[in-house]
Structure formats: C-alpha cells, structure tokens
C-alpha cells in the first residue's frame, strides 16, 4: 500500500478492511500537526481536537456497521481561518480580531462534514487574505516543506503546507487572486479554483467581493474530485450559485483520450517565466502533443493587464469590505495588509468602474478563446518560492517583483470566473516545486479535473515528498 501521499480511495479501503481506524488516523493527524509546529511548519492555528475525535468516532461506527458515507468518510481535513467552522473563531489570519466561536459552519464545510470528512481545525492564512506569500507578523510563518527558508505562498498558506507535509490530504481554502493556486504551486500540491458560482461562499465573508471563490488544495486530484462532488451546488444564500448551469458530475480519469483535444497557449503568459519554470512546463506541452493533443497560439485581449486589473478590483473591494477593520485595528495590522487597504481606499469610483468595463471585455474575449480550445495552459506562477525575509515576519513586506512573479497568471480566472487548477509538475534546480495551470471553460470543472487526473495518472503531475513530511498512516516523519 502506498502511504504517501495518501490517495483517498486507499484510506477508505484501509478503513473498510479494518487496517486503519478513523480514530487513529485523526489522532495521528492532530499529533503530527503539533510536531510540524515544533519543526517550524505551524500550519494549524486553531485545533478542534474534541470535535475531530467525536467525528472520527462516529465515522468508525459507520465503517464498523458497513455504512460509510463515501470516500471522504473519516478523511482528515482543515479549513482556512477566514471560513466559518462551528465552535471555532473566524479571525481572518489575525491575532487581534475577536476570539469568538461562531455558531454554524460555512455551507461548504457543512457539506464536507455531511460526507463524513473530519475537520481537525483551522489553518494559517495571510492576514485578511491580502497577500500571496503567507509571510507576516501575525503568526509564525508555516515554512515551505520543500525548503524551510522559502515562503509557502498565500493566502491559503496553511492549507498548502498541511497538505504538502502529508498531514492532511485535503484542505478548504479560498482564492480571490490566486490564493489557492499560488501556495499549491509553491508547495508542490494540487490547487483548484472552481467556476464562479459552483461552490457556495456562504460563511466566508472574506470572499464577498466579485473575485472571491472557494478553493480546494489536495495531494491528489481524486480528493478534489470527491470534494467537488460534495461542496458544489446551489445555495440560496449565495446568489452566484443560482446561475449553475448543471450539477457537477465527476468524469474521473478513466478513458481520457487527448487525441483531437486542442489547448491554447498565450505566449504573453509565458514570456517572463523563470527559465526552469518555462522549461519544465514546455516539456509537459510536448508530452501532450505527443499524446495527440493539438497546441494552438491564442491571444487573450487585455491578457497582459490581468495582474493590474485584478489588483485594482481586489484592493478597492477589500478597502470597502474592511473599512471598519481599518478604523478599529489599524494599529494592530501588519504594514503590508495596511498598505493594500490604504491603496484600495485611494482608488476612485471612476477608476474602479473603468476596471470593471475592461474586465467585461476580458471576459468576452476569454469566452471567445475557450469556445475553440479545451483549455488554456500556462505556468501557475512565473517563479518558484522566494526566500523568507526576517524583517517581513516582523512588519510585513511589499515586494512588487514577487507579486508580479506570483500573480501575473492567476488573476485571469478570478476576473472571468473560469475554473482553473494548478498541477505540480516537478522542481527547479534548487528543488523548489513548479506548478502548471489549466484554465477551462465555464462550468467545465469536471473537464479541467479530468485533464489534471490524466497528468497525474501519467506521473507528469505528481506530489513529490518534501524534505519535511509526515506519514499519516504510520506516523513516521
């Protein structure tokens, strides 16, 4: 039995055959999270040991009676801090927001629990989700498991570190500018942002803006696929979900044939990629061609401006969203988060509306491109994980070059709402993970996952065991 990384089917099979019990696995997960914190990779910032043990016991009973709820039953998961989990506080990755347990789960969390998944707690995130490195003064930085001197990426930093280190096979995060896909890319795991409106955002007020999406970060495509089958679907509390064209239906990875499939390549999204990133990603393109896929050049109108467009819309909406927080907590905030909010507060209504009109043209053009290709493929991030600077852990930092390197290709799918996944396709010469992004057509979430599953099955995309990792089945590090 392969024990690392842990495919969900193997864990469910081990439970069914009584080789493992949900109670033991959950206990191990909680213990390993503590060990990871001692080793400088503190991804879990609020543990729910009592709740997790209770859920694990209920899961064990279901397996004992032969009535498991499905492949996620007994599956340890953790939730990004800004997403509501009943009994835990929602503090948006800060230490100064009120510590006040919320009464109910976010809709996506409840749906995961209803499928038997066991929430072990809440994970680290960049303060208010307003950064993409995961580094700041609020909590100790959960260091990248592949290189402890490198950033984990953000803002769903704890989600990616927990998954990459092997302690949780799946985490629910969020993504308003790449916050799910960027840390997945830097930590070498899969990160999926579904179609806008596919997964309810109810219970995550951090996602109230027009770019916000839930995200799933996992060590296997199958885990994302199973979770999507559970968390997606209409929710009257989130009007965006009422546009859902048809329910999500998994396509799995069986029978995928690339012959005749066409993928779009926009060279402007590759131009500034670091040499190792471009080299590895282009090797994947050659493999796809070798399997019968066709690559065509495409040019997305305003594609070269998506970073600026996303930044302007995101900062303006965030400044509006956090007006009261700035009044109440400015003195407690990291200076990087405060910089983003100060910048957003200066954007005029006219500039914001101008940006939304450009965004309208971008949406139309991406829809045009995706009407003739199955997906657009590009590196998720143009660079691999940058170093952690000691002063950034004290004050926060603003590094325009790093922001460009991490967000140039991720904002596109937030601005248009299209589904996108980051797949781990290897490492650079320093052993740092590289992510390849696949952006598919609206509501074709299953199609995007099917391509990722094909890459995974062919071992083109795979989660490599990092230097700092833990075995959830044996407990070994």
């Amino acid at each position, binding site marked *: 039995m392969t024990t690392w990384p842990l495919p969900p089917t193997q864990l469910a099979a081990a439970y069914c055959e009584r080789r493992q019990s949900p109670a033991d696995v959950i206990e191990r997960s909680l213990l390993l999270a503590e060990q990871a914190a001692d080793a400088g990779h503190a991804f879990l910032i609020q543990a729910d040991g009592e709740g997790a043990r209770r859920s694990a016991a209920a899961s064990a009973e279901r397996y004992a009676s032969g009535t498991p709820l499905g492949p996620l039953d007994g599956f340890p998961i953790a939730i990004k801090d800004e997403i509501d989990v009943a009994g835990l506080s929602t503090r948006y990755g800060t230490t100064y927001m009120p510590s006040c347990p919320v009464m109910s789960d976010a809709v996506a969390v409840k749906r995961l629990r209803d499928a038997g998944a066991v929430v072990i707690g809440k994970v680290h995130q960049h303060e208010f989700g307003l950064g993409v490195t995961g580094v700041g003064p609020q909590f100790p930085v959960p260091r990248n498991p592949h290189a402890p001197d490198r950033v984990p990426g953000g803002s769903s930093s704890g989600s990616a570190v927990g998954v990459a280190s092997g302690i949780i096979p799946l985490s629910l995060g969020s993504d308003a500018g790449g916050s799910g896909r960027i840390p997945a890319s830097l930590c070498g795991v899969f990160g999926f942002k579904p*179609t*806008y*409106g596919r997964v309810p955002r109810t219970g995550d007020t951090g996602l109230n803006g*027009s770019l916000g999406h839930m995200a799933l970060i996992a060590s296997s495509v199958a885990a994302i696929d199973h979770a999507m089958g559970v968390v997606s679907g209409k929710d009257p509390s989130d*009007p*965006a979900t009422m*546009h859902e*064209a048809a329910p999500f239906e998994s396509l799995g990875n069986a029978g995928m044939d690339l012959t005749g499939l066409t993928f779009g390549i926009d060279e402007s999204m590759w131009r500034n990629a670091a040499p190792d990133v471009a080299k590895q990603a282009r090797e994947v393109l050659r493999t796809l061609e070798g399997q019968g896929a066709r690559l065509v050049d495409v040019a997305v109108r*305003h594609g070269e*401006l998506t*970073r*600026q*467009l996303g*930044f*302007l819309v995101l900062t303006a909406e965030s400044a509006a969203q956090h007006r009261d927080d700035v009044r109440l907590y400015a003195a407690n905030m990291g*200076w*990087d988060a*405060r*910089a983003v909010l*100060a*910048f957003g507060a*200066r*954007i005029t209504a006219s*500039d914001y*509306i*101008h*940006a*939304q*009109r*450009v*965004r*309208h*043209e971008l*949406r*139309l053009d*991406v*829809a*045009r491109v*995706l*009407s003739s290709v199955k997906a657009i493929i590009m590196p998720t991030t143009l660079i691999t994980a940058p170093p952690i*600077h000691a*002063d*950034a852990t*004290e*004050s*926060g*930092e*603003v*590094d*325009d*070059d*790093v922001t460009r390197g991490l967000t140039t290709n991720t904002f596109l799918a937030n*601005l*248009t*709402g*299209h589904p996108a996944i980051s797949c781990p396709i290897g490492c650079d010469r320093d052993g740092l993970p590289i992510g390849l992004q696949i952006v598919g*057509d*609206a*509501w*074709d979430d299953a199609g995007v996952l099917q391509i990722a599953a094909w890459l995974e099955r062919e071992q083109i995309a795979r989660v490599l065991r990092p230097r700092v990792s833990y075995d959830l089945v044996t407990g070994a590090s």
Partner: protein
Amino acid sequence: MKPKTPRLSGHMLRTMVRTIESPVIGGGAFYAMAHQMGVRELLDLHVPRETPIPFDHAPIVASKRNEP
C-alpha cells in the same frame, strides 16, 4: 526589461503607508505607486463608449459549451 523595484519592509514600508494614508499628499503618493505597479497603464486604457458598466458580478459569459 523592467527595472527591479525595491522591496519595502520595516521603516520604508511604514513611511509609504503613512504617506498614502495622509489626507494631504496621499492622492499623489497613490498615483506614484500605481504608476510603479503598472496600474497607470490600465487606467489609461481606452474602453469603447458602448462597453457596459457591469453591476452584475456573476462573471460567467456563456460560451459555446454552456449555452442551453
């Protein structure tokens, strides 16, 4: 090739934030920073008069596969 922009942290970052927050000089500081970050390029972009102002944030444009 774009010249490398300085990484801001500590004192420099605090000064930058306080400048942008300043009611007197904040607007100018914002546009200087916007220029440096390439946002100016976006703000100067021409958008045809007929482009709508979208207030519906559901950003999914029906494409071939999504049409009923």
